[in-house]
């Protein structure tokens, strides 16, 4: 055995121990990085952007709360409400609008929704029939919707009262119309809670959570550094693993070579 062989073995053993401990401690982070990375590579196939997280704790962490104002109206046996930019008929999501909800009513198998500058016509199931606005003769600045005493749909606008014909295709000003306007009402507590969960649940996509998990941002401001540390540890593991393998290969190669004893001459026949 050479004079320097013992310290070299010691060094190798120490590197091996480091490799082992770092490997064990980085394992969890590597699993997180690899699995989230795989999922993000197939975002479209997995439809991560159209699946939403409804976990209340996670939603709180992301600061997704209920909107400050919820506007709601009681239409026969249904509830029409606006949560932020989302409109709901009971629990059916009717779509998004930046305009404020001013009321709604059912008229001949149609749900008529009045927004600040538009009137939406939908089927009772929530399918869009038509969006009406200035081009269709409805002025902007709608503040209420109602039914006139002769059964016409009417909207109160900045330019006065406008009423519609039977199929709601033509709107005209009707200054003498007397209408009963739809008033706001508070949602029942149980529906309010269900819609709150639905609204908050729509605010956070699974893709966002997985992206943040992959980058470490989900663990707060220091999460990024935790994932950086994981990346550095993985680099160390790659180098230390390769180094240990190379040293072992060399040692195995040396051990396989025939050893000739000093002072012994080869026999001559």
């Amino acid at each position, binding site marked *: 055995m050479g004079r320097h062989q013992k310290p070299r073995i010691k060094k190798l053993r120490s590197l091996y121990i480091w490799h082992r401990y770092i490997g064990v401690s980085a394992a969890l982070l590597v699993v997180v990085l690899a699995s989230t990375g795989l999922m993000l590579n197939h975002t479209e196939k997995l439809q991560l952007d159209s699946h939403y997280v409804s976990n209340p704790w996670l939603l709180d962490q992301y600061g997704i709360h209920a909107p400050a104002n919820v506007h709601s109206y009681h239409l026969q046996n249904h509830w029409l409400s606006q949560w932020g930019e989302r409109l709901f008929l009971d629990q059916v999501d009717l779509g998004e609008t930046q305009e404020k909800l001013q009321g709604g009513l059912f008229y001949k198998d149609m749900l008529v929704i009045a927004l600040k500058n538009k009137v939406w*016509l939908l*089927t009772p199931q929530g*399918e*869009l*029939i*038509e*969006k009406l606005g200035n*081009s*269709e003769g409805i002025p902007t600045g709608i503040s209420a919707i109602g039914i006139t005493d002769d059964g016409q749909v009417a909207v109160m606008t900045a330019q006065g009262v406008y009423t519609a014909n039977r*199929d709601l*295709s*033509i709107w005209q000003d009707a200054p003498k119309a007397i209408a009963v306007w739809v008033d706001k009402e508070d949602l029942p507590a149980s529906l309010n809670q269900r819609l709150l969960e639905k609204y908050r649940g729509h605010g956070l996509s699974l893709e966002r959570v997985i992206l943040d998990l992959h980058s470490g941002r989900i663990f707060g401001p220091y999460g990024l550094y935790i994932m950086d540390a994981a990346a550095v540890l993985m680099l160390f593991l790659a180098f230390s693993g390769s180094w240990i393998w190379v040293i072992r290969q060399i040692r195995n190669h040396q051990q396989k070579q025939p050893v000739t004893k000093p002072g012994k001459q080869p026999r001559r026949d």
Partner: protein
Amino acid sequence: MILFMKKYTQLLTFFVFMACAYAATARGVYQKQADFLSQTFTGNVPKPGLIWLTGKIRKAATQILQHKPSRLRVRYWARGMRSAWVLEEIGKEQPITLGIVINKGRIERLRVLAFRESRGDEVRHDFFTRQFSQAALKPDLQLSTSIDGISGATLSVRALQKLARLALYLDQQRQSRD
């Protein structure tokens, strides 16, 4: 060296400014619906008619648009064999609003009323929309004339073709109903 850098920074700023200005000019409302209709019917706009996109009409509209129509009811303005349609279709991300005049089953005029995408607004120019003039609908719901594309505006061109076909199809339905 500093002079050299200064010169190129100015050049780069100029190009960025021009690119932004180009992108900004691509969007816009070129004609209001009311003006389009007034121009089409020389000031005497007829009352609107309605076509419900249900049953076989919905099926054909879905085939033309390659997706379900976004609304169930489409309005039109017609006098005799002549009709005007204002339709919308998404080019890449934003809807393009088109005004189409049909006379005796052929496109008389096609005009982009509003373009909201950041690119591809070349389709609004007359040199492009003129190609649709006198186009009719073949039994396979395709246009009778071929439309030359514009590089960089493929999706906008496709949206205009779909709307032209849809307007021609809906006009056929209107006439068979009336």
